[in-house]
């Protein structure tokens, strides 16, 4: 049984036609289900828990990246499969998963090609692609054993690859991590001074399961496109905790 979690913005009239077409297609495919509409005071986890009590096994986020993140923050604590129907922008997570926008997403749901992936967690928020600290200037305390001092410049903690560069054809890919190895990869890109020339040096790559990011002052970090701020960030990985429906055109590869 399916549960569809609608973004609050979908009550807007401009989405009415698209939503009707999607609901009709879901009915045609025989995968219609319980509908939940997000609102300011609605707790997504409680809503999903209620659905599971009624026999729901698949939770589908209907909306943009913000909707997917709200659902993704709640889903890993339950043994359910997550799906996505992207409506509105930005929808980078859906593109990462290979799910097309609008009605075409219903066919991907129906095909039900699933993959079990690791999911990262930073200060209680889950992330699928990566966590980035654009300004750097932080200290990484890795596995509670060793400390890495990072000079100025960006730092990325990748479960897959940072969303910011993944879909930008002009941007050089920063790193591609395996989202099924039970590890995160902290990446510090190579830096080159203004007056230096020649080959760019190698980047720093640390394989780890747990780290604490500290700084003397609060720093901004970006979790799958969402900007947050903290002076200390606790990061860990939840191995194989997210079972998600993916499309054939997904932008990551899991080794077999």
């Amino acid at each position: 049984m399916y549960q569809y979690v609608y973004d609050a913005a979908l009550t807007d009239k401009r989405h009415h036609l698209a939503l009707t077409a999607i609901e009709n297609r879901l009915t045609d495919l025989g995968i219609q289900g319980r509908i939940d509409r997000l609102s300011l005071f609605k707790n997504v986890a409680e809503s999903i828990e209620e659905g599971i009590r009624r026999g729901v096994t698949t939770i589908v986020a209907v909306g943009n990246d913000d909707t997917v993140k709200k659902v993704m923050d709640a889903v890993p604590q339950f043994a359910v499969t997550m799906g996505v129907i992207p409506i509105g922008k930005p929808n980078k997570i859906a593109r990462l998963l290979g799910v097309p926008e609008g009605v075409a997403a219903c066919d991907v749901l129906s095909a039900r090609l699933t993959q079990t992936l690791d999911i990262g967690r930073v200060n209680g928020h889950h992330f699928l692609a990566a966590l980035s600290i654009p300004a750097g200037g932080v200290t990484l305390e890795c596995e509670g054993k060793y400390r890495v001092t990072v000079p100025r410049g960006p730092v990325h903690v990748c479960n897959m690859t940072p969303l910011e560069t993944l879909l930008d054809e002009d941007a050089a890919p920063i790193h591609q991590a395996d989202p099924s190895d039970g590890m995160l990869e902290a990446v510090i890109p190579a830096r080159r001074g203004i007056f230096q020339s020649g080959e760019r040096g190698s980047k720093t790559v640390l394989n780890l399961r747990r780290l604490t990011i500290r700084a003397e002052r609060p720093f901004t970090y970006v979790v799958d496109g969402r900007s947050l701020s903290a002076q200390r960030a606790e990061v860990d990985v939840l191995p194989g905790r997210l079972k998600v429906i993916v499309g054939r055109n997904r932008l990551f590869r899991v080794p077999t």
Partner: protein
Amino acid sequence: MFKPAARPESASNDTVIAAGVKVEGDFTSAGNIIIEGEVSGTLRTDMDLVVGPEAKITASVTARNARIAGEVHGNLSVSERAELTATAKVSGDVQARVLVMEAGAILNGRCAMGAEAAPVLIPTPVLRNRPVKAES
């Protein structure tokens, strides 16, 4: 991993410490480690270690194979093959099954080679067919 005159390429499971990055503490990895920055504390891997020419390590080092081109202050325990290139500067004791030194490499410390030289990574023997004591 050890190709002569080749720059170490980072594979998916390799841990890389690039130039300009400083690591302090008990640095352990199950995969290969490539160091081009600074490490102080202890450094241990079950696989191979490559220390670049600009790298500076102040740590006791344990690895299966090691190729040292930079500076190491501390004891080096290698269960298989240790290579010191022409730019290597090692201040500490070296234990390795096989030790290869290029002309120009500097080694200040004691050196032990051969099968019995690297006891650190040799697993503790397990008595599988332990004789059962006859009950009287």
